[in-house]
């Protein structure tokens, strides 16, 4: 196994210190390292093993110490764990080694009060500028809600106006309310004439503190709370969470439930990809494609509604299985409608592929090389469009994906056009998967009874959301409420690469780049 080789190399590289490892649930290996060894270990992972993908950093409060977990993906899950005292929570940054660690370190800094020495941009990421309530995820800290609202009249709003500086440079604020944004976030674009030379980003407008709320509610309630992290990919959130909790419980989910979960996942992927195709088309002024894409999307929403009862939030996955079943007649009707949908989707593909103006607006825009994708740890269709062949449905199959035949779509352009192509082809691939799922679905029950109390333990659960790798870290202390739930959604990785994508493009192309990134700010802010 690769992780065993890595652990052996780590032991060799850090002589005289205690490096222990154990394999955890869902194939994750946990390696415990002393603080001074961490940077060394990260460098070793890169240089010797080529492990470059940092999934996220989880910080958690464990009594007198703060624990940091660096979740890597090395073809299998590998977590480096280190501990630092609460009284002196200092650690060296690893952003010089992994550029993509930047946002994760900022989040750990504001949520747990850890100081990352040498971080290039230590501003808060999600909390508001006037936040005075302390680190929200530290226990035995004063109650963060006690911070109370500040008076509106005394508050200065921090979004700057349009500024012109002597060197003909102009700063243009976009957002938080702007026609090209469906959700609030704020960019500041520095332009020279029509050319964007610099940009900065502020998120956190939809930060709802879900990770803390999770600690206050029980496991069943959390299913419904976590579903509302995002309205577009709600099903994959519950599936990832329940998969983690089931692993902690040691629960065997019936195979039919796995198939139904995967069916919903694929329907959701189709709906999400069509949604973003429409939004991209609208952003570049191509309203016809927007209308076509959203009209066809209704077919998929109808199927999802018939299956689960909800168009957008489905409450389909529960701990121990799924909440609905599918009968023969219904399965046939789904297959017929998917055939109709495929015909309409082919028309849409023809329009997109053969319409020159669409390509002219999207080619060579928002370019990310394979190198940059790996630097920023970008995931999902964004990474696949730059030629990185990664898809957790194939690499770490969950639910029913083990039994399915799946082709991973990649492209090599690295621009908005390549991303569009990847998404269009993935819709067809998902259709293919849906048919396999309905046809091969085994019989039997769809749910098993799950106990309310979860034994103490921890788990890292990974799935492939429509936008890429979704990762949950769940720690249980043996009660009916989780001690820590950490969620890293795929959008946050794309946001880190935004600066590189916006540099040196014309300001008129900014909407196309943003549309092509498929941002979901509700996911990123949580």
């Amino acid at each position, binding site marked *: 196994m690769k992780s065993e080789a890595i652990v052996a190399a780590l032991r060799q590289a850090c002589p005289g210190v205690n490096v222990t490892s154990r394999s955890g649930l869902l194939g994750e290996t946990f390696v415990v390292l002393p603080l001074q060894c961490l940077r060394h270990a990260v460098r070793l992972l890169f240089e010797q093993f080529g492990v470059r993908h940092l999934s996220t950093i989880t910080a958690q409060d464990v009594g007198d110490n703060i624990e940091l977990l660096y979740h890597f993906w090395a073809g299998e899950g590998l977590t480096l764990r280190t501990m630092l005292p609460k009284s002196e929570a200092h650690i060296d940054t690893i952003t010089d080694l992994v550029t993509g660690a930047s946002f994760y370190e900022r989040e750990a800094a504001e949520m747990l009060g850890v100081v990352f020495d040498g971080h290039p941009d230590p501003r808060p990421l999600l909390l508001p500028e006037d936040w005075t309530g302390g680190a929200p995820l530290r226990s035995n800290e004063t109650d963060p809600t006690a911070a109370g609202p500040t008076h509106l009249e005394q508050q200065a709003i921090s979004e700057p106006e349009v500024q012109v500086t002597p060197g003909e440079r102009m700063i243009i604020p976009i957002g938080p309310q702007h026609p090209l944004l469906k959700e609030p976030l704020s960019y500041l674009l520095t332009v020279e004439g029509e050319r964007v030379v610099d940009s900065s980003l502020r998120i956190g*407008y939809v930060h709802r503190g879900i990770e803390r709320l999770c600690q206050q509610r029980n496991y069943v309630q959390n299913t*419904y*709370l976590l579903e509302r992290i995002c309205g577009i990919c709600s099903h994959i959130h519950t599936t990832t969470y329940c998969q983690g909790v089931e692993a902690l419980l040691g629960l065997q989910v019936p195979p039919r439930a796995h198939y139904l979960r995967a069916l919903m996942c694929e329907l959701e992927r189709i709906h999400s990809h069509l949604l973003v195709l429409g939004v991209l088309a609208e952003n570049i002024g191509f309203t016809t494609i927007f209308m076509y894409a959203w009209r066809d999307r209704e077919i998929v929403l109808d199927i999802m509604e018939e299956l689960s009862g909800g168009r957008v939030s489905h409450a389909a996955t529960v701990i121990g299985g799924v909440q609905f079943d599918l009968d023969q007649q219904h399965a046939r009707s789904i297959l017929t409608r998917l055939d109709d949908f495929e015909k309409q989707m082919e028309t849409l593909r023809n329009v997109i592929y053969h319409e020159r103006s669409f390509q002219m607006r999207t080619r060579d825009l928002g370019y990310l090389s394979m190198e940059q994708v790996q630097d920023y740890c970008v995931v999902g269709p964004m990474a696949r469009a730059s030629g990185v062949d990664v898809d957790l449905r194939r690499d770490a199959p969950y639910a029913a994906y083990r039994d399915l035949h799946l082709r991973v779509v990649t492209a090599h352009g690295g621009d908005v056009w390549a991303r569009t192509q990847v998404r269009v082809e993935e819709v067809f691939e998902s259709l293919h998967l849906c048919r396999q799922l309905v046809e091969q679905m085994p019989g039997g029950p769809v749910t098993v009874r799950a106990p309310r109390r979860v034994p103490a333990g921890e788990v890292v659960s990974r799935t492939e959301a429509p936008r890429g790798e979704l990762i949950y870290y769940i720690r249980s202390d043996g009660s009916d409420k989780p001690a820590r739930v950490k969620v890293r959604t795929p959008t946050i990785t794309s946001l880190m690469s935004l600066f590189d994508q916006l540099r040196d493009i014309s300001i008129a192309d900014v909407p196309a780049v943003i549309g092509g990134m498929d941002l979901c700010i509700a996911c990123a802010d949580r």
Partner: protein
Amino acid sequence: MNWSRVVRWARRKSLWVVHYNTGGCNGCDIEILDLLTPRYDVERLGILREASPRHADVLLCTGPVTRQSRDRLRRIYEQIPAPRWVVAVGSCSCSGGVFYGSYNLMGGIDQVLPVDMYVPGCPCRPEAIIEGLLGLVEKIE
């Protein structure tokens, strides 16, 4: 000719809407966007989604109000020329909903702005949002 009657008639037939997500999960937002697309098509009722608050009559809010978006919400509301109306779409914009009790939330929209119409649902169906908007039209009359 009674001009106020003409103005009222015009207002009733052309509700221009600006949409702002104050902290929601996207669920209601995509349903609002869905209203513009062929199946629901609210333009047939004279309802148009506007990009700028300065052109709008109605502020359609989704989601609970987070600390960060509270002042921006106020600012957007102040930019809408009077008379203006506020519609809270979704359970969390009505009351805080599933996120009730979080450290970063102010509660529902009515904690910050006067709300004229509440549309509950998590997320709201497009039909419910249309009904809410038509209810607002009746209220305007």
